[in-house]
């Protein structure tokens, strides 16, 4: 017989009952345990909801990372993705899924569910909620609100603006404030940093000029060498600023189509623009670079724009 079996049962029983009485120990109420259980389920629901919000921002940011114009600021699509993916939100989403898993596992019956079901339901509900919230525009809204309220937070709009506000690389964000000389195709432009630029628009297509003149916020690609134009930026393409709302995929596709058209068409466009100019103003001087190169096959400033060259499928040296 072991020590345990030798020990009289009544000793322990009596000492426990007397301790319960002496210390006034009572069973915790059913309400306490119910609230404990509901708190865990509530925490699970809250983490799934937050996960859905994080996913809606992550999906908004992933789907709207400006891939349409990735060549404008990056060497290739991979470097662009590396730079633009919303890591913060993706990490937040996975942390929240882990928290949801923890909460569900600690409910009364949580341990009985297979791990696939626990993880799957946490991810599944977050993905469903995230999809719905994304569809409702919550991702864009939260991203924008955080961007305004938290200076350190880089919203998609801030990211896009920082990526495009690089004058030395020939990219600008801003708006036209004044038409300087309609005949000579010059516009006054204020960029996102408040800098003022004279834009030469002679190689722009008609609807790009219209967009520029609308005074709306736009992104532009421009030739920046001082040799090309001493007192003006040579604008090669204009794209609308579409992050003042939650843009749909259609808008990004249009952006991409515009970009491809710009990439493929500059020489023809230049010729058209030049012919129009010659018809209208026979005696008007061409800009210095155009004079220098008008007879060569690369007689367009924009045709030689490095961004266009990089994105052009049949690069002609």
């Amino acid at each position, binding site marked *: 017989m072991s020590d*345990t079996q030798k020990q009289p*049962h009544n000793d322990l*029983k009596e*000492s426990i009952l007397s*301790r319960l009485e002496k210390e006034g120990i009572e*069973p915790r109420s059913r309400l306490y345990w119910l609230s404990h259980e509901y708190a865990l389920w509530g925490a699970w629901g809250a983490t799934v909801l937050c996960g859905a919000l994080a996913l809606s921002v992550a999906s908004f940011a992933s789907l709207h990372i400006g891939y349409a114009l990735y060549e404008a600021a990056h060497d290739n699509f991979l470097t662009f993705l590396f730079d633009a993916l919303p890591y913060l939100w993706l990490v937040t989403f996975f942390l929240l899924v882990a928290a949801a898993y923890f909460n569900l596992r600690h409910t009364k019956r949580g341990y*009985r569910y*297979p791990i696939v079901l626990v993880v799957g339901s946490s991810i599944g509900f977050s993905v469903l909620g995230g999809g719905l919230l994304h569809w409702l525009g919550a991702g864009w809204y939260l991203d924008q609100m955080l961007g305004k309220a938290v200076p350190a937070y880089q919203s998609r709009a801030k990211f896009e603006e920082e990526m495009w506000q690089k004058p030395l690389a020939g990219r600008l964000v801003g708006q036209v404030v004044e038409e300087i000389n309609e005949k000579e195709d010059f516009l006054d432009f204020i960029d996102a940093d408040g800098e003022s630029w004279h834009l030469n628009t002679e190689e722009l297509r008609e609807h790009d000029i219209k967009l520029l003149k609308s005074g709306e916020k736009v992104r532009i690609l421009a030739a920046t060498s001082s040799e090309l134009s001493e007192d003006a930026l040579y604008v090669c393409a204009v794209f609308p600023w579409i992050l003042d709302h939650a843009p749909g995929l259609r808008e990004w596709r249009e952006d991409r189509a515009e970009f491809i058209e710009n990439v493929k068409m500059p020489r023809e466009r230049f010729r058209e623009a030049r012919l129009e100019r010659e018809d209208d103003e026979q005696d008007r001087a061409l800009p210095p670079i155009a004079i220098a190169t008008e007879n060569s096959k690369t007689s367009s400033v924009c045709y030689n724009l490095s961004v266009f060259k990089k994105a052009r499928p049949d690069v002609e040296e």
Partner: protein
Amino acid sequence: MVAEITSLGDKEVVKLALKERALFGHIVERYQSKLSRYVTRLGVRDPDDRDDVLQEVFIKVYRNLNDYDDSYSFSAWIYRIAHNEAISWYRKKKVRPEGNLVADSEEVLAFLNNDEEDASVRLDQKINAEYLQRAMAELDPKYRDILILRYFEHLEYEEISDVLKLPLGTVGTFIHRAKKQLRELLKKYE
């Protein structure tokens, strides 16, 4: 009255104990020996320590009686509290001492082999209690706990799932792995 209560199931006694504190003594009587053996197997070998642990277990059981869901086995629920209390005890002591298995090795080996279809994990009947105890002490703690519950406490898989808070499938997997590991450890004593 005492005879009537003795004939009642755990769930009914719990309901009565919630109304009348003194009736909680019947739960103590029913589980004192079982839990005493269990915490000993888990490593609480000193009789004084064991009494302290048991007392804390029953106080906790009483305090948490309203948390008991009668759609589960009461036995699994009380074993779970005992398991947690034993773990807290050796966490406080900062060491997990070797458990005292207090069991007949042949009986346990028979159990170990009984539900094992895979010959690679069948164990030699010639293993004696001392070797088994040594091998158990060397087992990964999570495997040792599960083998103790299955082959020393004779709990069903579902009850083990409730005690260790593991999914049912994981219990089966762990038992299989535990036996495999135990066989490897016992090889050196063959």
